[in-house]
């Protein structure tokens, strides 16, 4: 994949940061690399401001926004040591058409206060994606115009992509199942 050109402001060196060295930053947020892809780790407070900066720097399109529930995978790698990991993450993929660069944001969301500022004002295209993330993970987006369930029925209980949500296996009964018709001889 040749899709990662270094955007302006990024170091040209593709070397992984050595432990102990000062953490790399880009647009004021901590930067890591995941298989050559640039990943930013803004805090929830930094997130709206960072989006604005990115919008001004040519990242005109939010390609994707989704949630991840790290309930059963707490010891994850790829997050800088100074970032406190939380149960949820909102992952935002942005694209810069001019420099042909991609950037990924990973925002940590605690479970007891699962909310994040909406990107709707800057990127109206996140409307459906934020609704989906809300629907599947129960993460609220402040400032979203219409935060309702989008894929599940509106009276559904629970958020299906959370790891503690039972995906509901229907037991298959091969023997002794009641017949649809009364037995005739």
């Amino acid at each position, binding site marked *: 994949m040749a899709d990662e050109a270094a955007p302006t402001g990024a170091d040209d060196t593709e070397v992984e940061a050595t432990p102990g060295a000062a953490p790399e930053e880009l647009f004021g947020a901590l930067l890591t690399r*995941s*298989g050559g892809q640039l990943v930013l780790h803004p805090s929830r407070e930094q997130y709206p401001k960072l989006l604005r900066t990115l919008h001004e720097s040519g990242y005109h*399109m939010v390609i994707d926004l989704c949630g991840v529930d790290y309930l059963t995978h707490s010891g994850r790698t790829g997050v800088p040591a100074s970032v406190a990991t939380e149960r949820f993450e909102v992952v935002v993929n942005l694209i810069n058409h001019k420099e042909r660069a991609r950037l990924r944001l990973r925002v940590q969301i605690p479970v007891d206060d699962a909310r994040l500022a909406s990107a709707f004002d800057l990127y109206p295209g996140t409307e459906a994606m934020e609704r989906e993330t809300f629907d599947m993970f129960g993460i609220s987006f402040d400032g979203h115009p219409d935060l309702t369930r989008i894929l*599940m029925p509106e009276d559904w209980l629970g958020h*299906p992509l*959370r790891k503690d949500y039972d995906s509901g296996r229907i037991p298959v009964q091969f023997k002794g199942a009641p017949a649809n018709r009364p037995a005739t001889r």
Partner: protein
Amino acid sequence: MTTTHEAPANLAQTSEGAQELTSRDVISAGERLRELGAVLRLSESEALDAELDAVVDDETMIINMGPQHPSTHGVLRLMLELQGETVLRCKPIIGYLHTGMERTGEDLTYLQGPTNVTRMDYAAPLFTELAFSLTVEKLLDIEVPERAVWIRMLMTEMNRISSHLLFMATNGMDLGAVSMMLYGWREREEALRFLQEVTGLRMNHNYIRPGGVAADLPDGWRDSILRLLDMLPPRLDEYDVLMTNQPIWRERLQGIGVISAEECLALGVTGPILRSTGYDWDLRRDMPYLAFDKIDFDVVVGSFGDCFDRFAIRLAEIRESMKIVRQCLENMPKGDYRIQDKKVTPPPRARIDESMEALIHHFKIFTEGFKVPEGEAYVAIESPRGELGCYIVSDGSPNPYRMHVRAPSFVNLQTLPHLMHGNLVADAVAIISSVDPILGEVDR
């Protein structure tokens, strides 16, 4: 079966909002802003005032279109607010085909994954398989053999042809050109026949897998493609006669459902809809994956951003795809069609009888699956509908920890309120059709 019960606070939060389009006197400015299709031009306060004075509430009517409607391409439900014949607001309501495929993907191994994702975009199944496989390969940090790369390119472009032919058929059908429907279907069947020859199935192929492809190209594949490449151009010329150059067709589509490049960028819209505005962007050329940097083809762009441009772009893209297929035919390298990494690729059937290791590998791969190193990756490709991306988080186990597919139709559907605003209800069908949503991919 047990169900998780949420705290009452969460329940209130999730059941308060109806998904339906609400009448004008109860909606908020933010929602109006969105439904007016005016997010880019109006401020929130303006949105409250604009049109609200001009339109008297009892002159408008909210009607329901779908989910079972022949021209909504599946189970898309639209709520339209009409004033007479004019559509003022529109809200797509989706989820009728939601089957939790992202959740299912977490329970399947990486080898089983393609069977699941292939059912998302059922008109272009190979693309979702490709996006999934490329993401897994990125996490594994492996390179597939060159022949596999070119086979993948050949097959996805054939799939693009069949998908766009399906669009030709349904677009004709939606606008009343029933003969076009039959022609489109006829040619698509020919393209599917080739896919069937190679993969064994017309749809939902499960052909592109992590590590390569499922099988090598069969004997006589060159002749099949050459036959197809000879057959298609005259048929496409017929389409030009039947539709492109026909005044009724042009009247029906030109100037209908106009969108600007700025609106497309803001809404995250990709693919033919973005290109119809004159915005020159195609991942195959601009961020090449597979071996598209070695291929010579043109990116087709429109200039008006209307339904006709979107139709014409897709027709022209069939011709471009044929160019790519021809180059794949000429440059198809020899070699292996899948990676010879025993941890990823199951051994050939013959080896199982003679080698204990092969038997063990075979058993391990099909029962437990192969482990993928911890990490996360997002890889995107250009599907017939736009950018199709796959985001996978791996925790080091044989199943994806989280598998998310960025479906182009899901995002492109957001243009409907913008495209429909101010158009006639009769044109609504033309607009839905020109967005070309695949509901399997929208709802996943």
